[in-house]
């Protein structure tokens, strides 16, 4: 299973993108998107903002997902908050911190 993870700013702009594969069941943590799927990833992610936005303003909750994904999100969120507490970070700026990237990768290995 391959994952494409992105954090998106308030103007639909990508703040952070990361592709990785599963580390469970003998996976090596590498993303294996087909050529066809890969170039659509960003489009699909962008278009799913419609749904996210609707949920955000109606129920305010994310739909029930797998426990593993939820844990992954929680851990990444914690690190994200820490990362953007940097005094040099401005809102909607791309997150370039290599430490953050490492931590996301670690969370991915741990849960997915």
């Amino acid at each position, binding site marked *: 299973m391959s994952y494409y993870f992105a954090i998106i700013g308030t*103007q639909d702009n990508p703040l952070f993108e990361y592709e990785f594969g599963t580390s469970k069941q003998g996976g090596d943590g590498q993303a294996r998107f087909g050529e066809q799927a890969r170039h659509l990833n960003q*489009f699909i992610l962008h278009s799913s903002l419609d749904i996210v936005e609707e949920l955000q303003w*109606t129920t305010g909750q994310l739909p029930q997902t797998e426990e593993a994904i939820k844990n992954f999100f929680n851990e990444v969120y914690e690190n994200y908050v820490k990362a953007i507490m940097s005094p040099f970070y401005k809102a909607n700026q791309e997150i370039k911190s290599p430490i953050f990237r490492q931590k996301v990768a670690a969370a991915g290995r741990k849960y997915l």
Partner: protein
Amino acid sequence: MPTGPPSPSPPSPVHPLSVTTSPSTRHAPSRRSLPPSSDPLSSSVTLPLRSSSVRRPAGPSPAAATLFRSTLSFNTPPTTRPSSPAPSAGPGTAQSSPRSIMSSGARSVSLPLPLAGSIFGGGSLVANRQASLLDVVASGEEGGANTTGAPTDPLSLLLKAFVPHVAIHASEDVDELVREKGFKMGLWELLRPFGDKVQGRVTVRDSNGAAKTWEDFAIRFVRFGEGIEEPEPPEPSVNGGAEDASRKGKTDLVRLVERVVEMHLRFAEHAHAYSGSGEDGTASPGAAAAAAAAAAAAAAAAAADTTATSPYFALYLRRLLSGMPVSCHETFAHPVACVMAISSRNPSPIEALQKLYRDTSQGERRLPPWVGADFLRYYVLVHDEENGDITKSLALFEQMKRSFGLHCHLLRLRSSRSVISDDDCFELPRSDWMTPAEELADIEASEALLAADDDDAFEDPARYIFESDATAIRTFVREMVTQSIVPTMERNVSVWNDQVASRRRGLSGRFMSLSKRFAFGSSSSRSSVLGAPGASNTNYDAAAGFYRADAPEAIMRRLADYAFMLRDWKLAMSTYDLLRTDFSNDKAWRYHAAANEMTALSLLIMPQNMSSKTRIETINTLLDQALYSYHIRCGSLYGAIRSVILGLELLRLRGGSGVDEAVRWGVRVLESRLLGPIGDALLKERLAVCYATKSGSGSQGWGSRWRKAALWSVLAAEAWLGQGKCVQAGRCLSQARGLWAKVPREGGVAQWRGAREVLGGLEARVKEGLAPPMEVLGDGGEGEGIEGEEEEEEVSEMLDDRRRGRRQSLIGGVGAGVLETAPLGEGLEEERASAQDGFG
């Protein structure tokens, strides 16, 4: 006595009326078509386009342009010819483009709903629940949906597809007379376009006696005994090879539809290349330039109005629905009535009519046993105004009325041929409901002529008749429909409802299927099916694969279909619903699929009284059963595609969560690869429209699906590019831009590097495909730049986009470059002005 039971009503006074009205109107100086100068399609016929120095191999011929009118004339100014022979209020006001109707409708309705209840569809669903889909759409509450009046709107297509079929069986002398008027195929060809819209309003009573009036009632004229599809015994295990063959046969219709749409698309591509090559477009505005201009206008319009129905999708749907064969599992294409016509030239008229009658009830040409033979016979005497003796004809007509009852008409036609130079000529439009095979044959014939390169062989496909003839035929059709066909159908519905369906609806009927009831109870026609294997308690002839027309199931199906055609959705729905279980018990899968399909469709159209969740679940189950039975059990690709696409369209019109459901069905069709490449791309385009229909609320448009719509537009563009349809791909891309521009965010998807690269790649491919070949790019290309830019600004002014800067790129440029050669320049300006007014 060949007619049905004698009607108790007195003889109608309208027969003599119709006779007296025609002479008075004959000299009315009304030519419906406008002067040629304002009509690019007709003027192009005489242009020396083909003899120009720049010739493309299969360039669009001017005459061919008329063949492609159905997709060309989309969004051209409303001042072209009326598409229906029914008279309109006035030449100028009669038709307006779908877009202006929509915009004015949207403006006139102040939206009271959005903040009531849950804002995301819930509120509007509650409000819509009590109204039938027709009312919902007509009242304009449906955000950006097209109105029912628009010719390309899927709901109106659906209503006009499932209409009573009237078979025409004319004697040789009638066809001879009509052939003299220039109609090779006889009376059928002459009458056919007049069935597309019955003049005036038609009032129909439903099963409760409530009258409802319809503006857009239509019938379909077919030739008697044509298009019959034999039922197949559903025995896949026994004859696997035969099954494969039949499967192949089933796909034929779908493939034909694809090919027709492909031809239209190819014509648009050629037209574009032709006009783009700088071939003295401004000096001689040919059909090709007109086509390209129309395409560019449509592209500009499409970017502004993201929910417009693509003309190609409308064509696809229309051709899919117009090829409905006479098959056993549904009775829509079965004749409701049969017109038997003789002419005043016939030496022994009454005998001729009797012979015609015998043809339809016995002998070689009679219909198969699964078609009800008790359809209405309507007797027509065609009087030759120029050579016939009217007193003799009137006497004969009186005699006909005495012998055959009330269902008679005297049709007075002139026998000579009308030409365009005649004062009172009327161009007979081509029927909107040609079957795909017919249209394909037409196009191929014209291409063959072109290939032969014989200028003299050019034949203007337009046919003209005298205005008086048109009036007479309109009166005839209206009278037949309102006084004979509709009352007969109403009577049949009420009789069948009382005698057959009510038994099934009763308490005991609910526990026992029709077959069983009739097996143990009443005196029915059970003996006829005893030969069938395992037929101990069923009316279904499993070996032959059909119910006989007199079996209660078949009668119920006709009842439901009649109710559907008369737009009594509730009765139709409940009857289809009863049939579903019966057919399933009998393992009559094709019947089962069709009953499920129609239950879902009528349920979607009728007023809703369920909660939206139950409703959607019910409809999903029904459509699922229909798809499974059609596709897997019967291998009927046609049925599968039809049921899902119509279900999808109606779900979309229901709005709210229906839109998401509609897209889910679309994705399912795409994934199961039911469609060919053209259908695939069209459906992707359509899913974009679906998502764009879903209107959000609040200043931020929460709950809208613009990003998703844009994604589908991109996917559609990719699919078109794969087939080399660059014009269409360019249109999709510009539509995607328009959609992204609606999202109240800076930048859209272009902030994503990967996505930006993909988009850039697609655009480059479109540009490459649309660029005129270098060798034909003459000096005409020089002046284009400046004028093109002017046009470009106009286009972007018109589109009130927040991010119009983006549109200055290739797509706008291409569209503008085409506009520059438009002969319709002024017309387009007007159109734009009116469109802007509409938006306020």
